[in-house]
């Protein structure tokens, strides 16, 4: 499965939506995912891709990991996966 599809699947499951309803331009807030939901989604991403995501819930907006939209998260995950090699 492509990285993007897997990330969307994880976010959709967290939001309790169909994957078709999760658009790249959506923010997590748009999808009704709260701070606890973000932490859980990041855990699921780490488990799925065997990567470590730099994310601190105290400063969700200024980390190395951009969570401002679904597209941003996909790009950040792709970068971490590529880094892993």
């Amino acid at each position, binding site marked *: 499965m492509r990285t993007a599809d897997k990330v969307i699947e994880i976010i959709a499951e967290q939001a309790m939506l169909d994957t078709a309803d999760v658009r790249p331009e959506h923010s997590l807030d748009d999808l009704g995912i*709260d*701070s*606890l939901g973000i*932490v859980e989604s*990041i*855990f699921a991403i780490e488990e799925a891709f065997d990567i*470590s995501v730099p*994310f*601190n*819930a*105290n*400063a969700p907006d200024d980390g190395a990991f951009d969570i401002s939209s679904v597209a941003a998260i996909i790009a950040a995950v792709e970068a971490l996966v590529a880094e892993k090699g």
Partner: protein
Amino acid sequence: MHRVVITGAGTINALGANVPETLEAMREGRCGIGPLQIRDIERLQVQIGAQVRGYDEQAHFNRQQIALYDRFTQFTLLAAKEAIAQSGLSFEGELSVRSGVVLGTSGGGLNTQDENYRAVYEEGKNRVHPFIVPKLMNNAAASHVSMEFQLRGPSFTVATACASSNHAMGLAFQMIRSGGATVMLTGGSEAMLCFGGIKAWEGLRVMSRDACRPFSANRNGMVQGEGAATFVFEEYEHARARGAEILAEVLGFAMSSDAGDIVMPQAAGAERAITGALADARLPREAVGYINAHGTGTAANDKTECAAVAHAFGPHADALMISSTKSMHGHLIGGTGAVELLACIMALRDGVIAPTIGYEEPDPECALDVVPNEAREAKVEAVLSNAFAFGGLNAVIALKGV
């Protein structure tokens, strides 16, 4: 209605092995947080904590005791010994049955659990030491204090996460006030600095990897600590009749539940506990000169707490001082309110307000006098100690000088 006073205090925590050492560290704004020395530290992302260093259990307890006392029980017994010695009480006859123990903890014997899960799951052992259950149970500390000092009255353990010891001390206060007990040994203890205890917190992504900076705009999370603090709460006439030295009067207590979110605090619930404690104490808000904050150093707690204080105190919020000593002794979770009560007693007795250290940048959402970085001399009439737990459970205690 009986008046309730504090006639003894004891502690062991990252700042000191007793009350005088701890208060000196608070006065000097010393930081007890540093690199953790625990097994498998290299597998943790969070590698700092306020650990009790140089601690040798064999210097305090014999082999049989160590087999039964988890680290959190050991800390409690040491703190209780200091507090009871200061009070000058010995529990015999009628006083023994009129005195009890109510203590807070969140993790109880977590080190014992961690070590034994490791033994059976990781090392594949099929046999464990016979005393694991009595060693890990959350009430072990309360029971051992009861046995050691012959406190035969109401005794139990309270577990409300980060508010455990404030709830415990509040209940002890209520019991004496209502005539259900004459003396209560109360406070709390925590010893969670083991691999599993830190790994679980790490998962929540609210932990700082470098420092605890409450109220500072650049704060980035909480830092765990460990230790215990206990107090002798005593009915006022009983204390006066025997000429006991009184450290402070416990004036009021209130609890509330946010009934909102399992981790995100809500200002309204915190505010109700604060105003409830003032009402219970019959204190006008202008009488409060200092608040020992819950002040965890997380984004969520500190701004919510400041909003609650600002709203509860109105214009007086700008006149009072509020500091978080967690910046020095870390977050002792179920024992934290007890160690923090020491700072409240110091404010009332010594006129020294413990600072919020690590403070670097003002945060407009925490625009109160947080006593940044250096202790301050100030005379205060009454103080509050805040505790706001995960699960939205709030407990605030009001103390007054004597």
